[in-house]
């Protein structure tokens, strides 16, 4: 068993409005930041898992995402294992 570090980023699916991102985007010009667009806010999760291979680690985290870390109705996610 080896320990793998992983990162999971979860975002609202494209097409689902993201009020957090919109609020930030709207506030920026007044603070002197022009030209910022497409702000989207999601979750960044770091964790480490034990697995016998990188593939296995990836597969396990993928499954955790499906079941727990993201809600597939509204969210999409991205897993990186290192």
């Amino acid at each position, binding site marked *: 068993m080896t320990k793998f570090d992983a990162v999971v980023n979860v975002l609202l699916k494209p097409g689902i409005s993201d009020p957090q991102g919109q609020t930030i985007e709207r*506030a*920026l010009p*007044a*603070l002197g930041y022009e030209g910022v667009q497409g702000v989207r806010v999601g979750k960044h999760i770091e964790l480490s898992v034990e697995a016998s291979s990188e593939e296995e680690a990836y597969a396990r985290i993928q499954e955790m995402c499906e079941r727990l870390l993201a809600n597939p109705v509204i969210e999409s996610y991205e897993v990186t294992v290192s």
Partner: protein
Amino acid sequence: MIHRDLGLTDEEYKAIQDRLGRDPSYTELAMYSVMWSEHCSYKSSRVHLRNLPTEGPHILVGPGEGAGIIEVAPGKAVAFKIESHNHPSFVEPVNGAATGVGGIVRDILSMGARPIALLDSLRFGPLDEARTRYLVDGVVHGISSYGNSIGVPTVGGEVVFEDCYAENPLVNVACLGVIDTKLMNGKATGPGNAVILIGSSTGRDGIGGASVLASAEFDDESHEKRPSVQVGDPFTEKLLIEACLELIREDLLVGFQDLGAGGISCPISEMTAKAGTGMTVRLDAVHLREPQMEPFEIMISESQERMMAVVEPGNVQRVLDICKKWGLHAGVVGRVDDGDAVKVVDGAGETIADVPAVSLADEGPVYERPYERPGWIDEIQAADPGDKEPPDLAQAFLDVLASPNVADKSWVWEQYDHMIFLGTVQGPGGDAAVIRLPDSDVAVAITADGHGRYCYLDPYEGARSAVVEAALNVACTGARPLAVTNCLNFGNPEKPDVMWQFAQAVEGIGDACKALGTPVTGGNVSFYNETSGRPIFPTPVIGMIGVLDRPDAAVGSALSGDGDVLLLLGDTDPADLGGSEFASRVHGVIAGRPPKVDLADARDMIDLLVEVAGSLSSAHDCSHGGVAISLAESAIAGGRGFDCDLPADHRFLFSESPARVVVSCAPDNARQVAEAAEKRGVTVQQIGTVGGTELRFGGFTVSLENAKHVAAHSLADALAGPTIAS
């Protein structure tokens, strides 16, 4: 000079050496530094606080314990207390405010009470600054996320905006609890009993919070102090509440105390000092969040969401099992000893600290700090109070109504669960909140009020006004005011003028509480509210609790019956514009003398309100903005206008003469109310009738629609602008 880095003076260090007859170890020194800090020892305030009245027939426990205990009905006791979290909230508003809620809730819990209501008293700088908006947003979010999650309703409070709080906001939170089954005490009795630490693990967060964060003023180096901020964990706090109440219900605890400022050092020394016992604590038994913590770090870490219990050996397993059921960590970290020493032992069995418990808990320094009435106070009192006639009376009214200090605060309180427990008979938006205690027919009214502006102009008068306003807010609901808790927010006590403000304010509170028969059951002192040498306005905040005969007898502030008669109770002095909302809002002036309260009049007014409550449709005191604003607020709340015949004189309309109330009642009741008032020597004026869709003041008229819009939107609009963290 390590003791200086820890905030101890050379004299204090010498006192420790003398007491121990040797040099303290580093861990011991750290323990003294937190326990002898201003925050834990009240070294600058104690000599003054001694003069506050603390006894009364309803007071079961006064100052000195986790919270005051008040008997509100035969066999029904409540715990009530207020705390500040000013500095942490400035540094990190969300978590600073959240952990402030957590701390006061554990104070209440430590008495064996279930926390059932919160009040938040907030003060910020001007709203046109992005950084202020960031603080408001964060603080409200912090209180909301924590209070809502632990399931304790936030039922009232105040929000004030004033330039002096820009760099030093005030976040005071009061909590009300009801004794669940048994009143607990914080005593480590019974040598041989186990000492159990329950709740979160202990980490490096909040190290030196007591000595560094809360007890020294901010300066440009405060960045370095920042890591002592903690993140609140309301989920663990909720489990802690339920688990601990279950432990108390099963009668498994001998002694019980929360961990707040001072970390573990605080309960181990205070519980033993109170019981006349000793205690040995094993460091390796403390559940740590981080490896390799130094002994001193473990002893003073202020990690949140922890409680300490003293348990008979035979009950230890049961206690651990119940904690486990709730998913909480709990472990035996020590035992109660004969003797009087607090001992800390490391994993190797080596003694790291061994000091008399009372030396930490009770023998801290007591200072009689020099104080002196400052020269500037005469100048400011003699200056123009801002009482000139405004160009347009109706416009002046709308300006005052739109002041963020006056306007509708629902932007804030709609973010708070204010209904859970099915007891909120009157929530935020009126005078005091009225709460029916769970499983009972007993209702209490609670409020928190301060008046920094008046206190700046005259701390003695201002403090008295705050007590009277709080009592009136309670009495307007028909409740009889019973007891007070107070949070004293001041600048640097080492400055004689700040110390003078403090002494004056405490005297004012004492005099008012004596006159009103509402003893002080506890509170909190927050000094060093200064940034770069500029102190805040002296700001005592008064938490007041009263009791009603029946929950359904509560009187609201909203006008409720067309055709009702409007009566103004109390005397109006047109000269009472010093420090008023009118002067500040219309003329930009904070000067002159604040209104002077006649305590006997205030007492008569309270007695009158309690007596005639059953005959009233509404009651609302005149505070910020005077009778004009009081009328408008009642009209907006009730969704109906009025027709009054008031003098077209700004000095009458906006005067903030204290101890005045606008009541409405059915015409048939007017005679009786007036007679009751006359009997008590309270001036009554019939000023108009309820009804219509306009606010007809006599000299001018504003539509209800417009007034409502102005009041409802000014705060929300001001807060809609962008926010910035730093």
